[in-house]
């Protein structure tokens, strides 16, 4: 079936897609600006004509559409029901379908299940059949759906100003095949990394067809340990797979395995298995992190050492000396200096040695080969090989490098260059001047999803398909082959990479489906058709993982790796180290035009819509950025540079080897003193309206020989200021009990430590006579807690509740965007975030504590200064669904009330926007639609009736979840516990029950969007009335507590206290978590109960100077 639409050519303005999230200004109406646009997007986005739309609509199947223009009387508009002409297999209007697919991502794809509504993919979830991920997915996977419907993606194949149709493209590719057949001299390819078996097969064929052609691969971000290191250590082409679940002691050497390393999803999940504690006797892993930046991994550390990336080799050498009991590596450790150095290393090594075979040392992928070799040596000595560290055989890459390709281009030997994906003009090493060199290549053909910086320099641009509209295959981090299955026909006649390569290679059936089928039928056993069907159905090819090989460390052989070692550089204000960090959201820049990601705050800095030069508090002081007070403090007497989410940052210039880049400086506690962090992926010059002009491009100062980090940088003051949209200006809990923490040994002695913290421990029991009753009883009985208000009976069959484990939450932000995708949450743009009007229903609070916050936090010396060595506590905060909800009692129109199953519901249609509820919410989790964010472009929000009244482009609307109401201006909204999923599950259960009373939903049927995406399973939702449900069991744990519980609002979402597992022998050991030290300081040495910290408070890790 198709929707009947007006197929006449859309207006010019619509074609260039100006009305996406942030539209062009009114200039778009002037002919001059349109001309400028035509120059900027010469591929002629105007190619999205009626034919394309019609083709796409054929696949679409929506049941209802507005119609009958002008014919309806004044009684009501005439609506139409538009059924299919011919029924489509499997589609029942109103029911979603689910298909297995995968998001290819460098060499470690993420297996997914895509939800489609009448042929329109709206949401992806992790594929539960792939056990290492267990149904989880990542922040980037969640957001990738939005890219599919980006009106600013390349919508046509173009050559110069000319639009190419499919036939012309095929001819072009056939011509390349013919011209270079048999030789390939002058032909070159530059592609991104891929783990697609089909692509590997086609590349092999290309090499056979064009033996002299150059096949180069370039990834701006290195996320796998160098194979050269494994080669040196073991003499085999292997890559490590870490088994974090089996590791009790973990040392990370600049490795952010929660985010930046390949397989981070699997690793985070495995790490959480070793971290999860259900009872006082459970063991828990211990994490040592040595790093220069402040990564998510570092935020989970039990012991964290700030050390420049350049000094990591020295540290590793010192650690290796201790563990191996030699002096061999002493020269490498020369110059290493930090407070309590010897004790730190000795005790860390001793702890590892106590856990032989269950410890693990992980080195960051961007670290030099020597660090990896030493890490392997340590692991080998500790007997970890084959236990916590497996090795799998991988094919060594036969691809050439971008540097070699650049040299060939300079040498003039490249006649035709095909650039497949990537964006080298933007992100190739600056010293290669890759973009400029493209001018000397006679024929440059760019294949890419966006018309970006590289496309602008290429004569021909071929529009790539999104992974949700193309056939392909990929491998996960452990090598399991997964299908990339299309959910929809290419919206704009895009070409898939497989088909492009097949055509250039001269395959007889270049069709991508046929190519993938051929690959899989070769790999799978049995009937190839059946095997392929099973492959597509399961979403993976069973038994296709890389083969594990046993390895033995070869000391003699590995010595060769140390023939030439990177030099140790002492750092100072005049000689800074620059760390190029993979951004949490933009990755390497590929997601720059994704509004969900741009608006999602960085997990550590909490900056949205920009990146910043991150500097340590000490460096900031030396630069003179912190005059009287602290940048991150608000509501202080001293100069506060924060107002309402506006961070007034100083703009500095980074000077590195003669190259410069300007950016705002953000002071990030916890950085190595003289390391500055430049997040990659921003500063795009030719992205869409979302991506262009956000942040600065760190690639401008990044050279081929120093991809991970570089030394010799300087910061030069410009005197300018810039506003950053920071969603959490306040970093300290100020000794309050928001996040309750304990060390593992305290937990073992006093499992219910959370009860000893907070106001509840000082007040009479808020639950009155019901205090000791079961959660199920409390949840469903009235009166609740001696309340004066008459409260509704919560007498529903189910009583919904949620438990969030702060001990495993890594703060990765995936829940924020998963929620945004599920619940149709709009984005509001930087300007509105600056006003604190962000709409995400989940807020991930990040607190620093250094043990210094004192009783007089306001004004006293105590925490005036930013902590240099803070501990981090993360806390996802969203509507707590209070049983005695303060928001409900103040609503004048009963728009927010409780349903009988304990959900605090919002009836959007009743809401008149008084915002009383938001004012009365103690958790500050309600969000108000200040504008018609779903209707208006973000730059015409303030134009009132003068603004464009038109809706969002059809394409943007397609990402919306049809099961959730789109909210309009003036309406309050907030977390609903994914009430649509709850209702659908109830309906499904009742349908199943039919004429029986079997209407109770089995535990585990409903997963909220945040729960489903969570890589570490920190969020559990379910029926608290059922004592055997997973959520009830978690709530029955000793660590369970309610945030602001003393208010007697009786939140249905409760938290499990956070645990830390520090080593008492370590020099930076603190007997209490630093937030507890602050808590005790604020509240005086409490005399209520043992939990109030009578223990020695040895805190304050020395704020020593090290560089």
């Amino acid at each position, binding site marked *: 079936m198709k929707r009947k639409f007006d197929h006449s050519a859309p207006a010019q303005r619509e074609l260039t897609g100006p009305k996406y999230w942030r539209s062009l200004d009114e200039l778009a109406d002037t002919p001059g600006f349109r001309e400028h646009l035509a120059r900027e997007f010469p591929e002629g986005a105007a190619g999205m004509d009626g034919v394309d739309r019609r083709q796409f609509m054929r696949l679409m199947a929506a049941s209802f559409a507005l119609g009958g223009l002008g014919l309806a009387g004044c009684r009501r508009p005439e609506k139409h*029901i538009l059924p299919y002409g011919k029924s489509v297999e499997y589609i029942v209007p109103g029911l979603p379908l689910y298909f297995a697919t995968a998001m290819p991502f460098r060499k470690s794809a993420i297996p997914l299940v895509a939800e489609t509504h009448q042929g329109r993919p709206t949401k992806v979830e992790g594929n539960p059949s792939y056990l290492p991920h267990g149904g989880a997915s990542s922040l980037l996977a969640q957001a990738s759906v939005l890219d599919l419907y980006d009106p600013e993606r390349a919508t046509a194949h173009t050559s110069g100003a000319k639009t190419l149709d499919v036939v012309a493209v095929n001819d072009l590719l056939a011509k390349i095949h013919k011209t270079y057949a048999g030789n390939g001299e002058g032909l070159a390819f530059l592609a991104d990394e891929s783990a697609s078996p089909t692509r590997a097969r086609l590349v092999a064929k290309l090499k056979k067809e064009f033996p002299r052609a150059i096949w180069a691969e370039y990834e701006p971000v290195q996320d796998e340990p160098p194979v050269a290191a494994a080669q040196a250590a073991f003499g085999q082409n292997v890559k490590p797979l870490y088994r974090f679940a089996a590791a009790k002691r973990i040392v990370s050497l600049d490795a952010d395995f929660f985010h930046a390393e390949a397989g981070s999803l699997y690793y985070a999940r495995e790490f959480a298995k070793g971290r999860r504690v259900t009872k006082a006797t459970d063991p828990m892993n211990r994490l040592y992190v040595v790093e220069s930046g402040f990564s998510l991994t570092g935020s989970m550390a039990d012991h964290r050492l700030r050390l420049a990336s350049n000094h990591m080799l020295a540290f590793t050498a010192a650690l290796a000396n201790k563990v191996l009991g030699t002096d061999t590596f002493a020269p490498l450790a020369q110059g290493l200096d930090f407070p309590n150095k010897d004790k730190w290393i000795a005790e860390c090594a001793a702890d590892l040695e106590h856990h032989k075979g269950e410890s693990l040392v992980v080195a960051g992928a961007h670290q030099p080969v020597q660090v990896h070799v030493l890490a392997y040596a340590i692991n080998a000595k500790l007997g970890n090989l084959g236990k916590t560290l497996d090795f799998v055989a991988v094919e060594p890459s036969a691809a050439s490098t971008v540097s070699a390709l650049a040299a060939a281009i300079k040498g003039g030997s490249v006649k035709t260059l095909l650039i497949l994906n990537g964006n080298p003009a933007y992100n190739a090493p600056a010293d290669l001047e890759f973009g400029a060199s493209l001018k000397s290549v006679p024929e440059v053909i760019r294949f890419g999803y966006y018309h970006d910086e590289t496309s602008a320099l290429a004569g021909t641009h071929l529009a790539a398909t999104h992974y949700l509209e193309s056939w392909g295959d990929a491998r996960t981090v452990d090598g399991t082959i997964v299908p990339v299955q299309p959910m929809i026909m290419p919206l704009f006649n895009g070409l898939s990479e497989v088909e492009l390569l097949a055509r250039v290679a001269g395959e007889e059936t270049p069709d991508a489906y046929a190519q993938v089928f051929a690959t899989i039928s070769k790999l799978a056993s049995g009937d190839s058709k059946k095997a392929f069907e099973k492959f597509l159905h399961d979403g993976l090819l069973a038994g296709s993982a890389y083969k594990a090989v046993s390895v033995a460390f070869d000391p003699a052989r590995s010595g060769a790796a140390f023939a030439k070692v990177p030099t140790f550089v002492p750092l100072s204000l005049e000689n800074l180290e620059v760390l190029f960090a993979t951004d949490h959201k933009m990755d390497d820049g590929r997601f720059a035009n994704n509004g969900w990601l741009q608006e999602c705050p960085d997990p550590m800095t909490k900056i949205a819509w920009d990146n910043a030069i991150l500097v340590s508090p000490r460096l900031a002081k030396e630069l003179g950025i912190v005059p009287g007070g602290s940048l991150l403090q608000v509501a202080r007497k001293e100069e506060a540079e924060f107002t309402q989410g506006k961070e007034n940052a100083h703009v500095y210039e980074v000077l590195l080897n003669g190259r410069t880049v300007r950016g705002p400086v953000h002071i990030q506690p916890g950085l190595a003193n003289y390391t500055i962090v430049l997040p990659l992926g921003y500063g795009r010059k030719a992205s869409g309206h979302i991506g262009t002009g956000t942040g600065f491009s760190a690639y401008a100062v990044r050279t081929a020989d120093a991809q991970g980090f570089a030394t010799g940088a300087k910061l030069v003051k410009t005197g300018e200021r810039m506003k950053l949209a920071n969603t959490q200006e306040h970093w300290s809990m100020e000794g309050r009990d928001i996040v309750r923490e304990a060390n593992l040994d305290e937990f073992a002695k006093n499992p219910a430590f959370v009860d000893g913290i907070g106001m509840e421990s000082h007040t009479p029991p808020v639950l009155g006579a019901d205090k000791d009753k079961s959660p199920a009883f409390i949840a469903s009985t009235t009166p609740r807690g001696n309340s004066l208000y008459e409260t509704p009976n919560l007498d529903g069959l189910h009583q919904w509740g949620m438990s969030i484990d702060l001990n495993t939450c890594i703060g990765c932000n995936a829940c924020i965007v998963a929620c945004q995708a599920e619940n149709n949450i709009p984005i509001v743009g930087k300007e509105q975030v600056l006003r604190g009007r962000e709409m995400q229903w989940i807020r991930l609070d990040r607190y620093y504590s250094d043990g210094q916050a004192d009783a007089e936090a306001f004004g006293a010396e105590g925490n005036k200064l930013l902590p240099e060595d803070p501990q981090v506590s993360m806390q996802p905060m969203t509507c707590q669904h209070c049983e005695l909800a303060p928001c409900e009692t103040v609503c004048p129109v009963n728009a927010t009330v409780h349903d009988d199953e304990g959900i605090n519901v919002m*009836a959007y249609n009743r809401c008149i926007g008084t915002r009383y509820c938001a004012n009365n919410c103690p958790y500050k989790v309600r969000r108000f639609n200040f504008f018609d964010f779903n209707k208006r472009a973000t730059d015409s929000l303030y134009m009132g009736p003068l603004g464009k009244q038109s809706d969002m482009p059809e394409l943007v609307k397609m990402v919306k979840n049809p099961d959730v109401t789109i909210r309009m201006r003036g309406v309050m909204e907030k977390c609903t516990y994914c009430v649509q999923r709850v209702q659908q599950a109830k309906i499904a259960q*009742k349908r199943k029950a*039919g004429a029986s009373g079997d209407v109770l939903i089995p535990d585990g049927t409903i997963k909220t969007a945040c729960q489903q995406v969570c890589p570490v399973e920190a969020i559990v939702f379910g029926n608290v009335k059922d004592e055997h449900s997973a959520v009830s069991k978690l709530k029955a744990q000793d660590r369970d507590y309610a945030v602001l519980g003393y208010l007697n609002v009786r939140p249905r979402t409760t938290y499990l206290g956070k645990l830390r597992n520090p080593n008492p022998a370590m020099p930076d050991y603190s007997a209490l978590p630093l937030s507890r030290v602050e808590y005790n300081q604020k509240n005086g040495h409490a005399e209520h109960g043992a939990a109030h910290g009578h223990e020695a408070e040895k805190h304050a890790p020395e704020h020593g100077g090290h560089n």
Partner: protein
Amino acid sequence: MSKIFPKSANALPLQILIFLGILGGVATAGISYYATPAYLRVGYQPVQPVPFDHSLHAGQLGIDCRYCHAGVEKSATSSVPAAQTCMNCHSTIKTQSPLLEVVRQSYQTGDPVPWVKIHSNPDYVYFNHSVHVARGVSCVECHGKVNEMKVVHQDKPHSMSWCLDCHRDPASRLRDPKDVFNLDSKTLADQGKLADAKKFVHDWKVNPPTSCSGCHR
């Protein structure tokens, strides 16, 4: 001092009050009658692109509702049939009928037949057909006796209070499950078996939502 107002003016306030009272009453009565779905919607009978006769197909020929409205037991929408469904029979019966030209066109080209929507809920209402028919609520309850309609019209107001009437008192509207698609059947209550219906409500745990979240998400 001469009188400015005649004596009759003393009655004026009362008269004004009475007038306002009557005006208010009339306005209230008018609005509550004319501005509710019961007046505005019931009886809506638009002209359809194909003069499909339910009384012939469902009544005379006895075709089950679900033959055409196939999604009703699975999905939120009962789904209007594809042209293909019509052509199952009409490729052999009345193959040349000019009335069916639109359907044949749709079948051949894939362009949908633009049926005019009669029962229309607002976008913020999430009604689900499948759960109602699975739990003993017949089509008749909301759509009336479609099997007797030559041209379908809206029979019930479909207002929120009308929904709640039933949600608050399900026993009076339930049918025996086998009668759900029998449009000529009676509710258990009408058959005088209210006690049975109440037992069903209890045994099946029929507990229709009366909270906002039941329909608004």
